[in-house]
Protein backbone atom coordinates (compact mmCIF):
# COMPACT_ATOMS: atom_id res chain seq x y z
CA UNK A 1 0.00 0.00 0.00
CA UNK A 2 2.74 2.42 1.01
CA UNK A 3 4.62 1.49 -2.13
CA UNK A 4 1.78 2.28 -4.51
CA UNK A 5 1.19 5.58 -2.78
CA UNK A 6 4.77 6.69 -3.12
CA UNK A 7 4.73 5.63 -6.76
CA UNK A 8 1.63 7.71 -7.34
CA UNK A 9 3.29 10.69 -5.76
CA UNK A 10 6.36 10.15 -7.89
CA UNK A 11 4.30 10.33 -11.05
CA UNK A 12 2.02 13.10 -9.86
CA UNK A 13 3.57 15.66 -12.16
CA UNK A 14 3.19 13.55 -15.32
CA UNK A 15 -0.30 12.21 -14.52
CA UNK A 16 -3.06 14.20 -16.21
CA UNK A 17 -5.76 15.64 -13.93
CA UNK A 18 -8.74 13.43 -13.00
CA UNK A 19 -11.17 15.12 -15.34
CA UNK A 20 -8.97 14.46 -18.35
CA UNK A 21 -8.46 10.83 -17.39
CA UNK A 22 -12.23 10.58 -16.88
CA UNK A 23 -12.95 11.66 -20.43
CA UNK A 24 -10.13 9.58 -21.82
CA UNK A 25 -11.87 6.45 -20.50
CA UNK A 26 -15.22 7.58 -21.90
CA UNK A 27 -15.86 4.14 -23.34
CA UNK A 28 -16.10 2.40 -19.96
CA UNK A 29 -17.71 5.40 -18.26
CA UNK A 30 -20.38 5.17 -20.97
CA UNK A 31 -21.08 1.60 -19.84
CA UNK A 32 -21.92 2.57 -16.26
CA UNK A 33 -23.52 5.99 -16.58
CA UNK A 34 -26.84 4.84 -18.05
CA UNK A 35 -27.21 2.51 -15.07
CA UNK A 36 -26.21 5.19 -12.58
CA UNK A 37 -28.62 7.70 -14.10
CA UNK A 38 -31.34 5.09 -14.00
CA UNK A 39 -30.78 4.54 -10.27
CA UNK A 40 -30.65 8.28 -9.72
CA UNK A 41 -34.06 8.72 -11.32
CA UNK A 42 -35.88 5.60 -10.14
CA UNK A 43 -34.31 5.09 -6.70
CA UNK A 44 -32.81 8.34 -5.46
CA UNK A 45 -35.52 10.76 -6.58
CA UNK A 46 -38.21 8.73 -4.75
CA UNK A 47 -35.91 8.56 -1.70
CA UNK A 48 -35.73 12.33 -1.74
CA UNK A 49 -39.45 12.46 -2.44
CA UNK A 50 -40.05 10.80 0.92
CA UNK A 51 -39.73 14.31 2.34
CA UNK A 52 -43.26 14.92 1.14
CA UNK A 53 -44.30 13.10 4.31
CA UNK A 54 -43.49 16.43 6.00
CA UNK A 55 -45.55 18.43 3.49
CA UNK A 56 -49.16 18.94 2.61
CA UNK A 57 -48.45 17.65 -0.87
CA UNK A 58 -50.89 18.54 -3.58
CA UNK A 59 -50.70 17.46 -7.19
CA UNK A 60 -51.29 21.00 -8.43
CA UNK A 61 -48.60 22.69 -6.38
CA UNK A 62 -46.08 19.90 -6.90
CA UNK A 63 -43.21 18.89 -4.64
CA UNK A 64 -41.52 22.30 -4.62
CA UNK A 65 -44.67 24.33 -4.16
CA UNK A 66 -46.36 22.37 -1.40
CA UNK A 67 -46.21 23.79 2.16
CA UNK A 68 -44.11 22.15 4.87
CA UNK A 69 -46.10 20.97 7.87
CA UNK A 70 -43.56 19.12 10.03
CA UNK A 71 -44.79 15.99 11.76
CA UNK A 72 -48.49 16.66 11.20
CA UNK A 73 -49.09 13.51 9.16
CA UNK A 74 -47.13 11.33 11.55
CA UNK A 75 -49.20 12.63 14.45
CA UNK A 76 -52.38 11.99 12.49
CA UNK A 77 -51.18 8.48 11.65
CA UNK A 78 -50.26 7.63 15.24
CA UNK A 79 -53.59 9.02 16.41
CA UNK A 80 -55.70 7.34 13.72
CA UNK A 81 -58.29 4.89 15.05
CA UNK A 82 -56.94 2.13 12.80
CA UNK A 83 -53.28 2.68 13.77
CA UNK A 84 -52.99 0.03 16.49
CA UNK A 85 -54.96 -2.42 14.44
CA UNK A 86 -52.63 -2.00 11.47
CA UNK A 87 -49.57 -2.34 13.69
CA UNK A 88 -50.95 -5.42 15.42
CA UNK A 89 -51.81 -7.13 12.12
CA UNK A 90 -48.44 -6.30 10.61
CA UNK A 91 -46.55 -7.67 13.59
CA UNK A 92 -48.67 -10.76 14.13
CA UNK A 93 -48.73 -11.78 10.46
CA UNK A 94 -45.01 -11.14 10.09
CA UNK A 95 -44.11 -13.06 13.24
CA UNK A 96 -46.32 -15.99 12.29
CA UNK A 97 -44.64 -16.13 8.90
CA UNK A 98 -41.20 -15.93 10.47
CA UNK A 99 -41.96 -18.55 13.11
CA UNK A 100 -43.45 -21.07 10.68
CA UNK A 101 -42.22 -19.98 7.26
CA UNK A 102 -38.57 -19.64 8.21
CA UNK A 103 -37.85 -23.06 9.74
CA UNK A 104 -40.07 -24.96 7.28
CA UNK A 105 -37.63 -24.98 4.32
CA UNK A 106 -34.76 -25.90 6.66
CA UNK A 107 -36.68 -28.92 7.89
CA UNK A 108 -37.57 -29.84 4.32
CA UNK A 109 -33.91 -29.65 3.32
CA UNK A 110 -32.90 -31.83 6.27
CA UNK A 111 -35.50 -34.40 5.27
CA UNK A 112 -34.62 -34.36 1.58
CA UNK A 113 -31.01 -34.91 2.55
CA UNK A 114 -31.93 -38.23 4.17
CA UNK A 115 -33.40 -39.54 0.93
CA UNK A 116 -31.02 -41.77 -1.02
CA UNK A 117 -33.23 -42.53 -4.02
CA UNK A 118 -32.26 -39.88 -6.57
CA UNK A 119 -35.39 -40.11 -8.68
CA UNK A 120 -37.71 -39.72 -5.72
CA UNK A 121 -35.68 -36.84 -4.31
CA UNK A 122 -35.58 -34.95 -7.60
CA UNK A 123 -39.28 -35.46 -8.23
CA UNK A 124 -40.23 -34.10 -4.83
CA UNK A 125 -37.91 -31.16 -5.37
CA UNK A 126 -39.27 -30.36 -8.81
CA UNK A 127 -42.86 -30.54 -7.59
CA UNK A 128 -42.16 -28.41 -4.55
CA UNK A 129 -40.60 -25.64 -6.70
CA UNK A 130 -43.71 -25.34 -8.84
CA UNK A 131 -45.76 -22.99 -6.59
CA UNK A 132 -42.89 -20.50 -6.45
CA UNK A 133 -43.30 -19.87 -10.16
CA UNK A 134 -47.01 -19.22 -10.02
CA UNK A 135 -48.01 -15.59 -9.64
CA UNK A 136 -49.86 -14.48 -6.54
CA UNK A 137 -52.89 -13.84 -8.72
CA UNK A 138 -52.96 -17.49 -9.74
CA UNK A 139 -52.27 -18.66 -6.19
CA UNK A 140 -55.09 -16.53 -4.82
CA UNK A 141 -57.39 -17.92 -7.51
CA UNK A 142 -56.46 -21.47 -6.58
CA UNK A 143 -56.89 -20.74 -2.86
CA UNK A 144 -60.28 -19.15 -3.44
CA UNK A 145 -61.34 -22.18 -5.47
CA UNK A 146 -60.20 -24.67 -2.81
CA UNK A 147 -61.83 -22.77 0.04
CA UNK A 148 -65.00 -21.99 -1.88
CA UNK A 149 -68.34 -22.93 -0.34
CA UNK A 150 -69.49 -24.20 -3.72
CA UNK A 151 -67.68 -27.52 -3.99
CA UNK A 152 -64.38 -26.20 -2.72
CA UNK A 153 -62.03 -29.14 -2.16
CA UNK A 154 -61.48 -28.40 1.52
CA UNK A 155 -65.17 -28.08 2.35
CA UNK A 156 -65.92 -31.29 0.46
CA UNK A 157 -63.15 -33.11 2.30
CA UNK A 158 -64.32 -31.89 5.70
CA UNK A 159 -67.91 -32.78 4.87
CA UNK A 160 -67.05 -36.27 3.70
CA UNK A 161 -65.17 -36.81 6.96
CA UNK A 162 -68.26 -35.58 8.78
CA UNK A 163 -66.25 -32.91 10.55
CA UNK A 164 -68.64 -30.18 9.45
CA UNK A 165 -72.26 -30.22 8.36
CA UNK A 166 -72.47 -26.99 6.36
CA UNK A 167 -69.69 -25.61 4.11
CA UNK A 168 -67.62 -22.92 5.81
CA UNK A 169 -66.93 -19.69 3.97
CA UNK A 170 -63.29 -19.55 5.02
CA UNK A 171 -62.38 -16.44 3.06
CA UNK A 172 -64.92 -14.21 4.75
CA UNK A 173 -64.26 -15.26 8.33
CA UNK A 174 -61.67 -13.17 10.16
CA UNK A 175 -60.60 -15.99 12.48
CA UNK A 176 -59.21 -18.07 9.60
CA UNK A 177 -57.48 -15.31 7.68
CA UNK A 178 -54.06 -15.38 9.33
CA UNK A 179 -53.81 -19.16 9.04
CA UNK A 180 -54.72 -18.98 5.37
CA UNK A 181 -52.00 -16.39 4.78
CA UNK A 182 -49.32 -18.40 6.54
CA UNK A 183 -50.28 -21.67 4.87
CA UNK A 184 -50.34 -20.16 1.37
CA UNK A 185 -47.04 -18.43 2.00
CA UNK A 186 -45.35 -21.61 3.21
CA UNK A 187 -46.97 -23.60 0.39
CA UNK A 188 -45.62 -21.20 -2.22
CA UNK A 189 -42.07 -20.79 -0.98
CA UNK A 190 -41.06 -23.86 1.05
CA UNK A 191 -39.58 -25.82 -1.85
CA UNK A 192 -37.76 -22.98 -3.47
CA UNK A 193 -36.32 -21.66 -0.21
CA UNK A 194 -34.97 -25.10 0.61
CA UNK A 195 -32.56 -24.95 -2.36
CA UNK A 196 -30.02 -22.84 -0.51
CA UNK A 197 -30.09 -25.03 2.57
CA UNK A 198 -29.74 -28.19 0.49
CA UNK A 199 -26.69 -26.69 -1.16
CA UNK A 200 -25.24 -25.82 2.24
CA UNK A 201 -25.91 -29.35 3.48
CA UNK A 202 -24.16 -30.78 0.42
CA UNK A 203 -21.02 -29.00 1.59
CA UNK A 204 -20.95 -30.74 4.98
CA UNK A 205 -17.96 -33.06 5.36
CA UNK A 206 -19.25 -36.69 5.11
CA UNK A 207 -16.51 -37.87 7.47
CA UNK A 208 -18.35 -36.15 10.31
CA UNK A 209 -21.36 -38.35 9.68
CA UNK A 210 -19.23 -41.49 9.37
CA UNK A 211 -17.49 -40.74 12.63
CA UNK A 212 -20.79 -40.09 14.36
CA UNK A 213 -22.29 -43.29 12.94
CA UNK A 214 -19.33 -45.29 14.25
CA UNK A 215 -19.98 -43.73 17.65
CA UNK A 216 -23.55 -44.98 17.40
CA UNK A 217 -25.40 -41.75 16.67
CA UNK A 218 -28.78 -42.32 15.04
CA UNK A 219 -29.74 -40.55 11.80
CA UNK A 220 -32.03 -38.24 13.72
CA UNK A 221 -29.25 -37.40 16.15
CA UNK A 222 -26.86 -36.71 13.24
CA UNK A 223 -29.42 -34.42 11.64
CA UNK A 224 -29.61 -32.17 14.65
CA UNK A 225 -26.09 -32.54 16.05
CA UNK A 226 -24.05 -32.44 12.85
CA UNK A 227 -25.96 -31.21 9.82
CA UNK A 228 -27.87 -28.43 11.53
CA UNK A 229 -24.88 -26.85 13.33
CA UNK A 230 -22.81 -27.16 10.13
CA UNK A 231 -25.26 -25.04 8.12
CA UNK A 232 -25.89 -22.58 10.96
CA UNK A 233 -23.95 -19.68 9.32
CA UNK A 234 -26.21 -19.88 6.26
CA UNK A 235 -29.28 -20.02 8.48
CA UNK A 236 -28.18 -16.95 10.42
CA UNK A 237 -27.59 -14.90 7.27
CA UNK A 238 -31.06 -15.73 5.99
CA UNK A 239 -32.57 -15.09 9.38
CA UNK A 240 -31.08 -11.59 9.44
CA UNK A 241 -32.47 -10.92 5.98
CA UNK A 242 -35.86 -12.27 7.02
CA UNK A 243 -35.92 -10.01 10.07
CA UNK A 244 -34.95 -7.02 7.92
CA UNK A 245 -37.99 -7.59 5.74
CA UNK A 246 -40.17 -8.60 8.69
CA UNK A 247 -42.69 -5.79 8.29
CA UNK A 248 -43.41 -6.66 4.66
CA UNK A 249 -45.94 -9.23 5.86
CA UNK A 250 -46.70 -10.27 2.25
CA UNK A 251 -48.33 -7.37 0.45
CA UNK A 252 -49.63 -9.10 -2.68
CA UNK A 253 -50.97 -12.10 -0.79
CA UNK A 254 -52.93 -9.92 1.64
CA UNK A 255 -54.10 -7.53 -1.04
CA UNK A 256 -55.48 -10.38 -3.14
CA UNK A 257 -56.98 -12.60 -0.44
CA UNK A 258 -57.99 -9.96 2.08
CA UNK A 259 -59.77 -7.47 -0.14
CA UNK A 260 -63.11 -8.45 1.39
CA UNK A 261 -64.09 -5.53 3.71
CA UNK A 262 -65.29 -8.06 6.30
CA UNK A 263 -61.64 -8.94 6.81
CA UNK A 264 -60.39 -5.37 7.17
CA UNK A 265 -59.83 -5.74 10.93
CA UNK A 266 -57.42 -8.62 10.51
CA UNK A 267 -56.01 -7.97 7.03
CA UNK A 268 -54.98 -4.33 7.18
CA UNK A 269 -51.15 -4.17 7.36
CA UNK A 270 -48.82 -1.20 6.82
CA UNK A 271 -48.28 -1.90 3.13
CA UNK A 272 -51.92 -2.38 2.25
CA UNK A 273 -52.81 0.65 4.37
CA UNK A 274 -50.34 2.82 2.46
CA UNK A 275 -51.78 1.48 -0.79
CA UNK A 276 -55.38 2.08 0.19
CA UNK A 277 -54.88 5.53 1.65
CA UNK A 278 -52.28 6.72 -0.84
CA UNK A 279 -53.22 5.26 -4.21
CA UNK A 280 -56.94 4.71 -3.78
CA UNK A 281 -57.78 7.76 -1.62
CA UNK A 282 -55.00 10.01 -2.98
CA UNK A 283 -53.85 11.19 0.47
CA UNK A 284 -50.25 11.22 -0.68
CA UNK A 285 -48.44 12.92 2.21
CA UNK A 286 -50.25 10.96 4.87
CA UNK A 287 -49.58 7.62 3.15
CA UNK A 288 -45.93 8.53 2.63
CA UNK A 289 -45.62 9.23 6.35
CA UNK A 290 -47.03 5.79 7.14
CA UNK A 291 -44.65 4.22 4.62
CA UNK A 292 -41.66 6.11 6.05
CA UNK A 293 -42.59 4.93 9.53
CA UNK A 294 -42.41 1.37 8.27
CA UNK A 295 -39.09 1.91 6.49
CA UNK A 296 -37.47 3.36 9.61
CA UNK A 297 -38.61 0.44 11.77
CA UNK A 298 -37.40 -2.04 9.12
CA UNK A 299 -33.91 -0.56 8.99
CA UNK A 300 -33.83 -0.55 12.80
CA UNK A 301 -34.78 -4.23 12.86
CA UNK A 302 -32.12 -5.11 10.29
CA UNK A 303 -29.41 -3.30 12.24
CA UNK A 304 -30.55 -4.86 15.52
CA UNK A 305 -30.63 -8.37 14.03
CA UNK A 306 -27.20 -7.89 12.57
CA UNK A 307 -25.89 -6.65 15.90
CA UNK A 308 -27.19 -9.76 17.65
CA UNK A 309 -25.78 -11.97 14.92
CA UNK A 310 -22.38 -10.32 15.11
CA UNK A 311 -22.24 -11.06 18.81
CA UNK A 312 -22.75 -14.70 17.93
CA UNK A 313 -20.04 -14.53 15.28
CA UNK A 314 -22.03 -14.18 12.04
CA UNK A 315 -22.77 -10.94 10.30
CA UNK A 316 -23.93 -9.43 7.06
CA UNK A 317 -21.41 -6.62 7.07
Amino acid at each position, binding site marked *: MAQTESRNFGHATEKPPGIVRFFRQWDIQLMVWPGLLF*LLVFSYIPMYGVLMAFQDYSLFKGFFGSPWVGFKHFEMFFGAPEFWNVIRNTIVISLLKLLIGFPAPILLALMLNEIRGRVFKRSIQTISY*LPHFLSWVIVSG*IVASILSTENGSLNMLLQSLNLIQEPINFLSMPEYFWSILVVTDVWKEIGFSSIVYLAAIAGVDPHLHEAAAVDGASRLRQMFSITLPAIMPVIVVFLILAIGSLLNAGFENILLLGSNPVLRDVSDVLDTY*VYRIGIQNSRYSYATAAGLFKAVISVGLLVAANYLARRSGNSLW
Partner: protein
Amino acid sequence: MIKLSTGDRALLIGIYAFLIVLGFAAFYPFWNAAIVSFNEGTDTMKGGVTFWPREFTLDNYQIVFEDSRLVNAFVISILRTAAGTLLGILLTAIFAYGMTKRELIGRKYYMIFCIVTMYFSGGLIPSFLLIRELGLFNTFWVMVIPGLISVWDMIIFRTFFMGLPGGLEESAKVDGSSNWGILFRIVLPLSGPVIATLSLFTAVYHWNEWFTPSIYISNADLLPIQTKLQQILNSNIMSEQMQQMDSAAQGRINKMRTITSKSLSMATMMVATLPILCVYPFVQKYFVKGVLVGSLKE
Protein backbone atom coordinates in the same frame (compact mmCIF):
# COMPACT_ATOMS: atom_id res chain seq x y z
CA MET B 1 -25.16 -50.48 2.16
CA ILE B 2 -25.07 -50.12 5.92
CA LYS B 3 -27.90 -51.87 7.67
CA LEU B 4 -30.28 -49.40 9.24
CA SER B 5 -31.26 -49.64 12.88
CA THR B 6 -34.93 -49.86 13.74
CA GLY B 7 -35.05 -46.23 14.83
CA ASP B 8 -33.40 -45.07 11.63
CA ARG B 9 -35.77 -47.12 9.54
CA ALA B 10 -38.77 -45.65 11.33
CA LEU B 11 -37.37 -42.17 10.76
CA LEU B 12 -36.83 -42.84 7.08
CA ILE B 13 -40.33 -44.22 6.63
CA GLY B 14 -41.70 -41.15 8.40
CA ILE B 15 -39.71 -38.86 6.11
CA TYR B 16 -40.87 -40.67 2.98
CA ALA B 17 -44.47 -40.46 4.13
CA PHE B 18 -44.17 -36.81 4.95
CA LEU B 19 -42.52 -35.95 1.64
CA ILE B 20 -45.17 -37.79 -0.33
CA VAL B 21 -47.89 -35.86 1.50
CA LEU B 22 -45.97 -32.64 0.88
CA GLY B 23 -45.51 -33.41 -2.80
CA PHE B 24 -49.22 -34.09 -3.10
CA ALA B 25 -50.07 -30.87 -1.24
CA ALA B 26 -47.75 -28.88 -3.49
CA PHE B 27 -49.19 -30.29 -6.68
CA TYR B 28 -52.84 -31.08 -6.01
CA PRO B 29 -54.27 -27.53 -5.77
CA PHE B 30 -52.82 -26.77 -9.15
CA TRP B 31 -53.98 -30.09 -10.57
CA ASN B 32 -57.49 -29.48 -9.29
CA ALA B 33 -57.60 -26.11 -11.02
CA ALA B 34 -56.36 -27.79 -14.20
CA ILE B 35 -59.03 -30.51 -14.27
CA VAL B 36 -61.81 -28.04 -13.47
CA SER B 37 -60.68 -26.04 -16.49
CA PHE B 38 -61.14 -29.15 -18.65
CA ASN B 39 -64.49 -30.08 -17.16
CA GLU B 40 -67.93 -28.82 -18.13
CA GLY B 41 -68.73 -25.91 -15.84
CA THR B 42 -72.25 -26.99 -14.95
CA ASP B 43 -71.04 -30.51 -14.24
CA THR B 44 -68.32 -29.21 -11.89
CA MET B 45 -71.03 -27.45 -9.90
CA LYS B 46 -72.54 -30.80 -8.98
CA GLY B 47 -69.37 -31.55 -7.05
CA GLY B 48 -67.13 -34.57 -6.96
CA VAL B 49 -64.66 -33.57 -9.68
CA THR B 50 -61.55 -34.46 -7.72
CA PHE B 51 -58.78 -36.18 -9.64
CA TRP B 52 -59.88 -36.36 -13.23
CA PRO B 53 -62.25 -34.41 -15.52
CA ARG B 54 -65.65 -36.09 -15.53
CA GLU B 55 -67.25 -34.38 -18.50
CA PHE B 56 -64.22 -33.52 -20.57
CA THR B 57 -64.57 -30.42 -22.68
CA LEU B 58 -62.47 -27.75 -24.36
CA ASP B 59 -65.32 -25.24 -24.34
CA ASN B 60 -63.77 -23.18 -21.54
CA TYR B 61 -60.57 -22.83 -23.52
CA GLN B 62 -62.46 -22.09 -26.69
CA ILE B 63 -64.06 -19.10 -24.99
CA VAL B 64 -60.72 -17.91 -23.65
CA PHE B 65 -58.88 -18.21 -26.95
CA GLU B 66 -61.65 -16.67 -29.01
CA ASP B 67 -62.06 -13.70 -26.71
CA SER B 68 -60.21 -10.85 -28.36
CA ARG B 69 -59.60 -9.04 -25.05
CA LEU B 70 -58.00 -12.02 -23.35
CA VAL B 71 -55.89 -12.79 -26.41
CA ASN B 72 -54.85 -9.16 -26.46
CA ALA B 73 -53.86 -9.31 -22.79
CA PHE B 74 -51.85 -12.43 -23.54
CA VAL B 75 -50.00 -10.65 -26.33
CA ILE B 76 -49.30 -7.68 -24.05
CA SER B 77 -47.82 -10.07 -21.50
CA ILE B 78 -45.57 -11.62 -24.14
CA LEU B 79 -44.41 -8.23 -25.40
CA ARG B 80 -43.78 -6.98 -21.89
CA THR B 81 -41.82 -10.08 -20.91
CA ALA B 82 -39.75 -9.97 -24.08
CA ALA B 83 -38.98 -6.26 -23.90
CA GLY B 84 -38.38 -6.23 -20.16
CA THR B 85 -36.09 -9.24 -20.23
CA LEU B 86 -34.07 -8.39 -23.34
CA LEU B 87 -33.52 -4.72 -22.52
CA GLY B 88 -33.10 -5.30 -18.80
CA ILE B 89 -30.52 -8.06 -19.13
CA LEU B 90 -28.62 -6.20 -21.84
CA LEU B 91 -28.39 -2.92 -19.93
CA THR B 92 -27.61 -4.65 -16.65
CA ALA B 93 -24.84 -6.70 -18.26
CA ILE B 94 -23.26 -3.61 -19.84
CA PHE B 95 -23.47 -1.81 -16.51
CA ALA B 96 -21.91 -4.77 -14.70
CA TYR B 97 -19.06 -5.08 -17.21
CA GLY B 98 -18.17 -1.43 -16.79
CA MET B 99 -18.13 -1.94 -13.05
CA THR B 100 -15.54 -4.74 -13.35
CA LYS B 101 -12.93 -2.36 -14.76
CA ARG B 102 -10.29 -1.54 -12.16
CA GLU B 103 -9.27 1.63 -13.97
CA LEU B 104 -12.83 2.99 -13.87
CA ILE B 105 -12.62 6.34 -12.12
CA GLY B 106 -15.12 6.57 -9.25
CA ARG B 107 -15.77 2.82 -9.19
CA LYS B 108 -15.83 2.64 -5.39
CA TYR B 109 -18.34 5.50 -5.14
CA TYR B 110 -20.47 4.07 -7.94
CA MET B 111 -20.64 0.78 -6.05
CA ILE B 112 -21.76 2.48 -2.83
CA PHE B 113 -24.29 4.45 -4.87
CA CYS B 114 -25.70 1.14 -6.12
CA ILE B 115 -25.70 -0.74 -2.82
CA VAL B 116 -27.56 2.04 -0.99
CA THR B 117 -30.52 1.43 -3.30
CA MET B 118 -30.72 -2.18 -2.10
CA TYR B 119 -31.39 -1.11 1.48
CA PHE B 120 -33.39 2.09 1.05
CA SER B 121 -36.22 3.01 -1.24
CA GLY B 122 -38.68 5.82 -1.50
CA GLY B 123 -41.62 3.52 -1.07
CA LEU B 124 -44.83 3.26 -3.02
CA ILE B 125 -46.18 6.82 -3.02
CA PRO B 126 -43.09 8.83 -4.08
CA SER B 127 -42.43 6.28 -6.83
CA PHE B 128 -46.05 6.50 -7.92
CA LEU B 129 -45.86 10.29 -8.20
CA LEU B 130 -42.52 10.11 -10.02
CA ILE B 131 -43.96 7.76 -12.65
CA ARG B 132 -46.83 10.17 -13.02
CA GLU B 133 -44.49 13.14 -13.48
CA LEU B 134 -42.49 11.22 -16.07
CA GLY B 135 -45.65 10.78 -18.14
CA LEU B 136 -45.50 6.99 -18.01
CA PHE B 137 -49.12 6.62 -16.92
CA ASN B 138 -51.15 4.50 -19.28
CA THR B 139 -48.21 3.55 -21.45
CA PHE B 140 -46.85 0.12 -22.27
CA TRP B 141 -43.39 1.21 -21.12
CA VAL B 142 -44.43 1.75 -17.50
CA MET B 143 -44.22 -2.03 -17.17
CA VAL B 144 -40.72 -2.15 -18.65
CA ILE B 145 -38.70 0.96 -17.83
CA PRO B 146 -38.89 1.18 -14.01
CA GLY B 147 -37.53 -2.36 -13.72
CA LEU B 148 -34.77 -2.18 -16.32
CA ILE B 149 -31.75 -2.12 -14.02
CA SER B 150 -31.52 -4.47 -11.08
CA VAL B 151 -28.59 -3.82 -8.75
CA TRP B 152 -28.86 -7.37 -7.50
CA ASP B 153 -28.46 -8.81 -11.03
CA MET B 154 -25.71 -6.31 -11.77
CA ILE B 155 -23.70 -7.64 -8.82
CA ILE B 156 -24.27 -11.25 -9.88
CA PHE B 157 -23.15 -10.44 -13.45
CA ARG B 158 -20.14 -8.54 -12.13
CA THR B 159 -19.08 -11.43 -9.89
CA PHE B 160 -19.39 -13.81 -12.83
CA PHE B 161 -17.45 -11.55 -15.23
CA MET B 162 -14.66 -11.11 -12.71
CA GLY B 163 -14.35 -14.89 -12.47
CA LEU B 164 -13.67 -15.25 -16.22
CA PRO B 165 -10.02 -15.90 -17.15
CA GLY B 166 -8.33 -12.52 -17.51
CA GLY B 167 -5.95 -13.70 -20.23
CA LEU B 168 -8.67 -13.70 -22.90
CA GLU B 169 -9.38 -10.03 -22.40
CA GLU B 170 -5.69 -9.18 -22.37
CA SER B 171 -5.02 -10.91 -25.68
CA ALA B 172 -8.08 -9.30 -27.26
CA LYS B 173 -6.78 -5.93 -26.12
CA VAL B 174 -3.40 -6.66 -27.69
CA ASP B 175 -5.22 -7.48 -30.92
CA GLY B 176 -6.77 -4.01 -30.77
CA SER B 177 -10.29 -4.79 -29.56
CA SER B 178 -12.15 -2.00 -27.78
CA ASN B 179 -13.79 -2.54 -24.40
CA TRP B 180 -17.21 -2.68 -26.05
CA GLY B 181 -15.88 -5.17 -28.58
CA ILE B 182 -14.49 -7.37 -25.82
CA LEU B 183 -17.81 -7.26 -23.99
CA PHE B 184 -19.89 -8.34 -26.96
CA ARG B 185 -17.44 -10.68 -28.70
CA ILE B 186 -15.73 -12.35 -25.76
CA VAL B 187 -17.33 -11.75 -22.36
CA LEU B 188 -21.02 -12.17 -23.19
CA PRO B 189 -20.55 -15.29 -25.34
CA LEU B 190 -18.72 -16.88 -22.39
CA SER B 191 -21.50 -15.96 -19.95
CA GLY B 192 -24.24 -18.29 -21.21
CA PRO B 193 -25.19 -19.85 -17.85
CA VAL B 194 -25.47 -16.61 -15.92
CA ILE B 195 -27.37 -14.92 -18.75
CA ALA B 196 -29.77 -17.87 -18.91
CA THR B 197 -30.35 -17.85 -15.16
CA LEU B 198 -30.93 -14.14 -14.79
CA SER B 199 -33.06 -13.99 -17.95
CA LEU B 200 -35.23 -16.76 -16.57
CA PHE B 201 -35.80 -14.96 -13.28
CA THR B 202 -36.43 -11.64 -15.00
CA ALA B 203 -38.85 -13.22 -17.46
CA VAL B 204 -40.79 -14.98 -14.69
CA TYR B 205 -40.98 -11.70 -12.81
CA HIS B 206 -42.33 -9.82 -15.81
CA TRP B 207 -44.78 -12.55 -16.70
CA ASN B 208 -46.18 -12.79 -13.17
CA GLU B 209 -46.15 -9.13 -12.16
CA TRP B 210 -49.65 -7.68 -12.07
CA PHE B 211 -49.51 -4.87 -9.51
CA THR B 212 -47.67 -2.21 -11.55
CA PRO B 213 -50.20 -2.25 -14.40
CA SER B 214 -53.06 -2.33 -11.91
CA ILE B 215 -52.09 1.07 -10.52
CA TYR B 216 -50.50 2.76 -13.54
CA ILE B 217 -52.67 1.57 -16.43
CA SER B 218 -56.36 2.25 -16.78
CA ASN B 219 -56.59 1.53 -20.49
CA ALA B 220 -57.97 -2.03 -20.59
CA ASP B 221 -56.24 -2.75 -23.92
CA LEU B 222 -52.83 -2.35 -22.31
CA LEU B 223 -53.35 -4.70 -19.37
CA PRO B 224 -51.30 -7.91 -19.27
CA ILE B 225 -52.95 -11.27 -18.67
CA GLN B 226 -52.16 -11.44 -14.94
CA THR B 227 -53.80 -8.11 -14.18
CA LYS B 228 -56.73 -9.03 -16.40
CA LEU B 229 -57.02 -12.33 -14.59
CA GLN B 230 -57.00 -10.57 -11.25
CA GLN B 231 -59.94 -8.46 -12.37
CA ILE B 232 -61.77 -11.53 -13.64
CA LEU B 233 -61.18 -13.43 -10.38
CA ASN B 234 -62.26 -10.41 -8.39
CA SER B 235 -65.62 -10.29 -10.07
CA ASN B 236 -67.20 -13.50 -8.85
CA ILE B 237 -70.50 -13.06 -10.56
CA MET B 238 -70.77 -14.30 -14.10
CA SER B 239 -72.41 -11.16 -15.44
CA GLU B 240 -69.66 -8.97 -13.99
CA GLN B 241 -67.07 -11.33 -15.32
CA MET B 242 -68.52 -11.24 -18.79
CA GLN B 243 -68.13 -7.50 -18.86
CA GLN B 244 -64.39 -8.17 -19.02
CA MET B 245 -64.86 -10.03 -22.27
CA ASP B 246 -65.85 -8.94 -25.74
CA SER B 247 -69.42 -9.15 -27.01
CA ALA B 248 -68.79 -12.11 -29.31
CA ALA B 249 -67.52 -14.15 -26.36
CA GLN B 250 -70.52 -13.11 -24.29
CA GLY B 251 -72.83 -14.38 -27.00
CA ARG B 252 -71.01 -17.70 -27.19
CA ILE B 253 -71.12 -18.15 -23.41
CA ASN B 254 -74.87 -17.63 -23.46
CA LYS B 255 -75.22 -20.18 -26.23
CA MET B 256 -73.03 -22.84 -24.62
CA ARG B 257 -74.77 -22.86 -21.24
CA THR B 258 -72.24 -25.23 -19.69
CA ILE B 259 -69.73 -22.50 -18.92
CA THR B 260 -69.64 -21.20 -15.37
CA SER B 261 -67.68 -18.38 -13.86
CA LYS B 262 -65.45 -20.92 -12.15
CA SER B 263 -64.67 -23.01 -15.19
CA LEU B 264 -63.88 -19.89 -17.16
CA SER B 265 -61.63 -18.48 -14.44
CA MET B 266 -59.72 -21.73 -14.20
CA ALA B 267 -59.21 -21.94 -17.95
CA THR B 268 -57.91 -18.35 -18.02
CA MET B 269 -55.66 -19.20 -15.12
CA MET B 270 -54.19 -22.20 -16.90
CA VAL B 271 -53.52 -20.14 -20.00
CA ALA B 272 -51.78 -17.52 -17.86
CA THR B 273 -49.58 -20.20 -16.27
CA LEU B 274 -48.84 -22.28 -19.34
CA PRO B 275 -45.68 -20.45 -20.50
CA ILE B 276 -44.11 -20.83 -17.07
CA LEU B 277 -45.02 -24.49 -16.82
CA CYS B 278 -43.42 -25.09 -20.20
CA VAL B 279 -40.18 -23.44 -19.22
CA TYR B 280 -39.47 -24.27 -15.62
CA PRO B 281 -38.73 -28.02 -15.55
CA PHE B 282 -36.17 -27.67 -18.32
CA VAL B 283 -34.23 -24.80 -16.87
CA GLN B 284 -34.23 -26.17 -13.34
CA LYS B 285 -30.51 -26.77 -13.30
CA TYR B 286 -29.99 -23.13 -14.27
CA PHE B 287 -32.15 -21.62 -11.59
CA VAL B 288 -30.74 -23.84 -8.88
CA LYS B 289 -27.34 -22.52 -9.91
CA GLY B 290 -28.73 -19.00 -10.00
CA VAL B 291 -30.05 -19.12 -6.47
CA LEU B 292 -26.64 -20.29 -5.34
CA VAL B 293 -24.84 -17.49 -7.17
CA GLY B 294 -27.16 -15.05 -5.46
CA SER B 295 -26.65 -16.52 -2.03
CA LEU B 296 -22.88 -16.74 -2.36
CA LYS B 297 -22.87 -13.04 -2.81
CA GLU B 298 -24.77 -12.58 0.43
